[in-house]
Structures are given as structure tokens and as C-alpha cells.
């Protein structure tokens, strides 16, 4: 009874805090924006501006986001499979190397690709189009799909596949057993990449491609019509909620086989004769998504020696401790919120917290930043607004949903019988979570922590709106220094951000590898 009360209290605390600190500012600002007195343009005027053109633009943006999400998920399956289900050469290297596009800001990657295309082909006509936006964003978000789908591949119970192999060939097993088992991960990958893509504005605006988010940005930054921008954002949020609702409805009807247990087989020998092809595929993707933009950045950085790189390092050095500390703290908060949301969604079937997380995740970053300012910028709440707490609130709002989705998938794959057996044995809830659930979902928690760290360390849209004056945060400094800085300095700064993130991830990876030893 006491345990139940503690459980309820914990959930209420997390739910209440998230609602109060993160969701309420959005409701407050949206409500304020909808009031006619709140802006120069009345609500009716703004509503009239949302016409057929807006909906057709939203449809166009959805089509682009759909293409990116579809391509990333397909590529995520292919590369996830090669990396996590076969014993391909240089596996460890590719597992980390293919994540690199996630470390680099979409804007900088777009600039690098733009320069590369111009140097190679003499024009950028192909890139400055919908196709270009799809191409660049697919490069950026495929690593996210690889991590999500790869961690699902890791959790598959080998016995199920082996049983299938007794009846049919391995290709059939993949399509009839393996892929259906990772369906939640496929959908999560699709949904997350779709939402990221439809919310992204820096790449389309760089290539001069008009999408729904560039329209929101234009209303916000050229017309200073915050009310219309917020109204348009509401459409975007509704679309994302609709998507998640469809996902939930679909998953609810889909029969899932619980997986994992003893005798895990995370690799197989069926593809041994395809080893060359597998390595080639990985290398081609590595070349396209990582090596080419990095080579462009390297050439630009060291074209005139190392002076600019050294200068860039000196400029960014003061931001390292702050940024890494904030990213760690942000990722930890996201994991706590994400785990709570995922646990109650899967075990207690209470989805309200997940919906709240999605609501904030789908809110465009700049609008979320404005909401935080409007709510927290008052004398009573100055302790939050003037400190790093406001940045942590931004991170928690933007990225807890990612943690929740990854952990939810992992929990979905744990047989309920494990918990039931322990319950019959009289083992209390917290011990069951600590001794059974957490060890089983640890790879997903780790993946969620890494992804959240990467996103927190690179977050710009919300942070630029709320960071306290006089503080130095890595992505902010890179982007504020970018304007009018020599190309060599910009490229050097990008390389430094990339190196810091890579070091951080490698350190986390080593820490995670050492973790089971500590536990034993």
C-alpha cells in the first residue's frame, strides 16, 4: 500500500512539475496570443491569414518530412541490421562514426554540402530545392534511426529467430519475425524523424525553400506577428499529435511478442558471404554523410595553417565546462522524466505524460523559447529566468519525449511475466524496477542518454531565446561568432564542437561498458 502511494506520489510529482514548469508557460502564452488585445493583429485577422495556402504549405512540408522520415527509417533498418545483427568488419568504428552527422548543426552541414556541391559541380541547383532539403536532412537524421532501430535489434530474443530458422530461410525470418518484432522502434524512428524534419527551418531557409516552418519564422522575425506565428505553430503541434495518435492506435492493435531473456544472439553468420557488400554499404554511407562534409570543413579550417583553429579553440574554451555540465544535467532530467512517462504508459497504461511530452516536443523551438520568456520573466521567478535553470527547462521540454519513446519501446519488449513472477515472489516494486526492468532496458536508457546529450549540447533554437546574459554556451557562441567571421574560423569551430561531442560520447560508451562490472 505504502509502495503504491510512493509510486503515485512520484508520478504526480513528475507529471505536476512537467506541467507546471514546462507546459503551463506554453498554454499561458498561447492563451495570451489568442486574446485580441495581445497583439497588433486581432485573432480574427490572424485566423483569416490561415487559409488554403497555409494548409497547402503544411501539406507540402508534411510530404517533405514524410520522405525524410521514410528514407531515414529504411536506411536505419539497413545500417542498424548490418551494425547490430551481423559481424561486419570495423563494427565498433562505424557504430560511432555514423553518428557524426547528429553532432553537427543542420545549418553548418547545409553550408558544407553547399560548398561541396559548388566545388564539384559548379552549381547548387540540385541542392537548392526540395530534393536538397530531403537529402541533407536524411543525412542528419539517419543516425537517429540507426540508434533507435539498432538498440531494438539488440533486444531481440535469439530464440524466436532460431525457431523461425528451423522452418524457413533467414530472409523470411527477417521479414516475418525480426522486423515485426522491432515495429515499435520503426514507428518511433519514423515519428521522431518526421517531427524533427517538419520543425526544422534552418536548412530550408538556407536553400531558399519555402516550407511551413520558414513561414512561421517569417511571421515571427520579419513581421513580428507573434500571434500568427503561435497560431501557425498550433497547426504544426496538432499535426504531430495526430501522428502520434495514429501511431498509438496502430501499435495498440498490433500483436507484440515480448522478447529478451537468456541466450541472446546479437549477431549471426548468415551474411558472412556478404561481408564485402556490408562494409562497402557502410563505407559509402560514411563517405557521403560524414567524410565529404568533414573534408570540406577540414580544408576550410586548415587552408591557411593552424592559426584559425587555435583561435577557435581559445574562443570556445570557456564554454566547454558549462556546456558539457548542462548537457549532462539536461540529459539526466530527460531520462528521469522519460523513464517515468514510459513506465506509466507501458505498465500502468496511463499515457497523459507522454502526450504532454509530445506536445512540447512538437512546439517549434523559437516559440517555446518565447513562451518560457513570457512566463518566467517576472520578478517573482527571476531566480529561474536569470539562471541556468531556464536552459535546463528548455532542454527538458524539448528532449524528454525522445527519452520517453526510446525507453517505452524497450519496456514494450520486456515480457510481463518477468515482473509477474517477481511480484508473486513478493519482491517490492522498486526492487523489481531496479533488479529486473532497469538492467534489461539499460542499452536503451544508455542510447537515450547519449542522444539527449547530443541534442542538449547542440540545442540552439530555444537556448538562444533564453540563455542568461553574460553566460557562454557552446552552440550559442559558435553561432554568434559565425556572423562575419572568416570561413576558416567557422569551420574550425564546427570541428571543435564535433570533437568535443565525439569525445563525450566515447567517454560515455567506455563508462557504459564498464558499468556491468561495477554492478557485479
Amino acid at each position, binding site marked *: 500500500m505504502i509502495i503504491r502511494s510512493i509510486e503515485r506520489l512520484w508520478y504526480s510529482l513528475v507529471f505536476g512539475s512537467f506541467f507546471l514548469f514546462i507546459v503551463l508557460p506554453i498554454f499561458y502564452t498561447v492563451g495570451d496570443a489568442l486574446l485580441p488585445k495581445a497583439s497588433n493583429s486581432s485573432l480574427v485577422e490572424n485566423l483569416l491569414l490561415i487559409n488554403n495556402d497555409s494548409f497547402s504549405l503544411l501539406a507540402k512540408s508534411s510530404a517533405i518530412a514524410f520522405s525524410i522520415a521514410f528514407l531515414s527509417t529504411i536506411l536505419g533498418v539497413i545500417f542498424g541490421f548490418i551494425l547490430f545483427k551481423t559481424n561486419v568488419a570495423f563494427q565498433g568504428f562505424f557504430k560511432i562514426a555514423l553518428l557524426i552527422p547528429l553532432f553537427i548543426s543542420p545549418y553548418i552541414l547545409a553550408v558544407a554540402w553547399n560548398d561541396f556541391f559548388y566545388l564539384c559541380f559548379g552549381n547548387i541547383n540540385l541542392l537548392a530545392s526540395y530534393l536538397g532539403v530531403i537529402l541533407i536532412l536524411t543525412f542528419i537524421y539517419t543516425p537517429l534511426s540507426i540508434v533507435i532501430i539498432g538498440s531494438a535489434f539488440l533486444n531481440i530474443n535469439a530464440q524466436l529467430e532460431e525457431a523461425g530458422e528451423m522452418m524457413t530461410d533467414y530472409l523470411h525470418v527477417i521479414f516475418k519475425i525480426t522486423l515485426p518484432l522491432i515495429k515499435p522502434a520503426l514507428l518511433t524512428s519514423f515519428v521522431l524523424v518526421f517531427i524533427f524534419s517538419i520543425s526544422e527551418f534552418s536548412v530550408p531557409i538556407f536553400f531558399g525553400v519555402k516550407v511551413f516552418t520558414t513561414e512561421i519564422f517569417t511571421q515571427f522575425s520579419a513581421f513580428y506577428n507573434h500571434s500568427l506565428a503561435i497560431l501557425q505553430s498550433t497547426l504544426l503541434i496538432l499535426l504531430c499529435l495526430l501522428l502520434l495518435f495514429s501511431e498509438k492506435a496502430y501499435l495498440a492493435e498490433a500483436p507484440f511478442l515480448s522478447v529478451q531473456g537468456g541466450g541472446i544472439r546479437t549477431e549471426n553468420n548468415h551474411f558472412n558471404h556478404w561481408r564485402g557488400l556490408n562494409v562497402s554499404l557502410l563505407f559509402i554511407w560514411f563517405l557521403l554523410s560524414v567524410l565529404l562534409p568533414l573534408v570540406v570543413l577540414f580544408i576550410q579550417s586548415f587552408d591557411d595553417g593552424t592559426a584559425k583553429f587555435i583561435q577557435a579553440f581559445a574562443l570556445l574554451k570557456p564554454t566547454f565546462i558549462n556546456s558539457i555540465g548542462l548537457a549532462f544535467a539536461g540529459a539526466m532530467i530527460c531520462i528521469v522524466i522519460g523513464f517515468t512517462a514510459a513506465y506509466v504508459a507501458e505498465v500502468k497504461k496511463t499515457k497523459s505524460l507522454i502526450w504532454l511530452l509530445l506536445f512540447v516536443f512538437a512546439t517549434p523551438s523559437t516559440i517555446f523559447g518565447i513562451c518560457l520568456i513570457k512566463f518566467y520573466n517576472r520578478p517573482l521567478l527571476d531566480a529561474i529566468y536569470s539562471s541556468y535553470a531556464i536552459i535546463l527547462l528548455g532542454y527538458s521540454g524539448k528532449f524528454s519525449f525522445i527519452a520517453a519513446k526510446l525507453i517505452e519501446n524497450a519496456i514494450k519488449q520486456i515480457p510481463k511475466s518477468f515482473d509477474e513472477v517477481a511480484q508473486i515472489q513478493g519482491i517490492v516494486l522498486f526492487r523489481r524496477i531496479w533488479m529486473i526492468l532497469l538492467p534489461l532496458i539499460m542499452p536503451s536508457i544508455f542510447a537515450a542518454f547519449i542522444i539527449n546529450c547530443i541534442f542538449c549540447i547542440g540545442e*540552439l533554437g530555444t537556448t538562444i531565446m533564453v540563455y542568461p546574459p553574460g553566460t557562454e554556451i557552446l552552440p550559442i557562441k559558435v553561432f554568434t561568432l559565425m556572423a562575419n567571421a572568416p570561413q576558416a574560423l567557422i569551420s574550425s569551430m564546427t570541428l571543435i564542437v564535433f570533437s568535443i561531442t565525439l569525445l563525450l560520447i566515447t567517454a560515455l560508451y567506455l563508462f557504459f561498458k564498464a558499468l556491468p562490472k561495477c554492478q557485479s
Partner: protein
Amino acid sequence: MKKIFLKIAILITLITTGCTENTDTVVVYTTVDQIFSEPILNDFESHTGIKIKAIYDTEETKSTGVLNRLIAEKDNPQCDVFWSGDPVRIIVLKNKGITSPYQSPMANDINGFFKDPDHHWTGFSARARVLIYNKNLLTKEEVPHSIFDLTKEQYRGKFAIANPLFGTTTFHIAALFTSLGDERAKQLFADLKNNEVVIASSNGDVKKQVILGKVACGLTDTDDVYEAIKEQANIGFVFLDQQGIGSLIMPNTVSLIKKSPHTENGKKLMDYLLSKETEAKLAKSCAQMPLHKGVKIPGDITSLDNIIPMNIDYDKTAQKLENIQNYLKKWLEQ
């Protein structure tokens, strides 16, 4: 292990959420590129001992991030001084009732043309809109000398301007509308569109496209041009329409924020920014043209005395800018 996790979490949270102290400070928001504004602000800090807390803007947000932040913070201002790279944004703030009047004694000898009659903003160190060209692609004789030249067939698809909805490009277009009248200006922009003007993402991108030879020439600001020259790019530049309507001059502007938390320190910073010393530093670092008389400038920088300026009223141009935004959006989307 559980305890270790908990301790690390608490430690990091405590370190990172520590509040910053609020002593002898001044908070400044600026749209001027950090690479140029930060050294000036650091100098102020070492001269006066007043701690600077700055917020800078980004190219990615078209330098509108701090403006939107100032608008959002209107009811409880955190900022004392807004230092803008052009007069447009500050006039937007003035019209929204966010700025407060302050007449700095340091600006007494600055021409009234560069100051708000109600003292809500004061101009200093100016940039100009110029035409940057690639010397490999255009000979001296081929270089256009008027914006109207860009409508000629020989420049079809060979010139660029930045996204007209943002930054100094919008202001330039608004100034052309003010100077030429709506009808003539619209005809000019229709002709430019017909002549396949290339739309770049920013002024920096215009500079880059010209350096790389993607286009032969483009409209940008003087600071971009001098940066390109510093990078030893093979480019040249001209002040357009020196025989006609003149070139647009865009001063930096500085403004005190209404109900700012450190008003007195804000005034001190404004005085410092409006000094001859600051103008000399900006002339050296980013080729900005001083508005004070008698400021020492490097030899390669054009003095304002040698340029025919576009004769416009900044307030009216800012008003015009608001009126033509919808037209520009449609023009861009055509």
C-alpha cells in the same frame, strides 16, 4: 552505484543552476556581429570596472533573435542597452514603446540626421550598402554603377541580393521605395526579378557567392566587403548611384531600454559606445565609417565625406518597411 549516480546528478545540477550575482553590471543585447562587438564591450569593462553581460545574435536567426527577445521581455526588461547594427530594429522597438529617451553628451557633434529627434536612439559608426563584384568575372568597365544597371541583359542571372525580408537588405529596399516612390521602385524590382536576380540566404552568403564566382556581383554591406578583402579575395566594390539617388548609409544605433534594471550603467555604456574612441576601433576592426568629425581611420576606408548618401528619413523608411513587407514576401515567392 545508485548513490554515485545520485551524487553526480545533484552535483551537476547544483553547479549548473547556480544563480549569477547581480552587482555592478550592465546588460547589453546586440545584433552587431560578436566578433566586432565583443572587443569593444570588453574594453568598456576594463575601463570602467562595470561588468558586461551581453547577449549576441546569430546569422541563423537573421539577427532577429534578440529583437524578439526584447519584445517578449517588454513587461519586465532584463536589458539595459540595445546596440543595433542598423536603425531599423531600434525604430521597431521605439514604436512598440520598449525604448527610453537618452541624450548622450558624447553625441553632441554627430549630425542630427543620424539621431532620433526624440532621443530614443543615436547613431554612430556607419556602414553603407555597396555592390561587391568578382574581379575575375567583371572588368572595371563592366562593373555596374547604378542599381538600375542590374536590370540590363548583360547581368541576367549574374547578381545576387540577400533575402529581402530580413536585415539590411529589407532596409535598403525600403529606402529605395522612399527615395524612388512606390511605382518606380516596384517597376525596378519587377525588372530585377525578370533579370533573374539570385536570392542568397544572407549578406554574408552574397559575399561568399561573389568570392566563389557563383555570381559576378551582388549587393551587400561594407563590413562584408572589407572582411572579403581581409581574406584576400579577388573582389572589388563600388558605392552605387553616386550620380543619382546616392548610397544607403546605415549607422549603428544604440538605445536605452525603458525601465532597464541598471539605467545609470546603461547610460555610461551608451556614452562609451558613442565616443570617438569606439568609432576609431570599429573603423579599424570592421571598416565602419565614423560619424564624429576628426576620428582617425585607416587609409583604405572611405570617409563619409566622399560618398553621396541616399537622402532618406530613417523613421519614415522604417514605416515604409512595415508597409512593403507583404509586397516583398510576394515578390520573393514569385
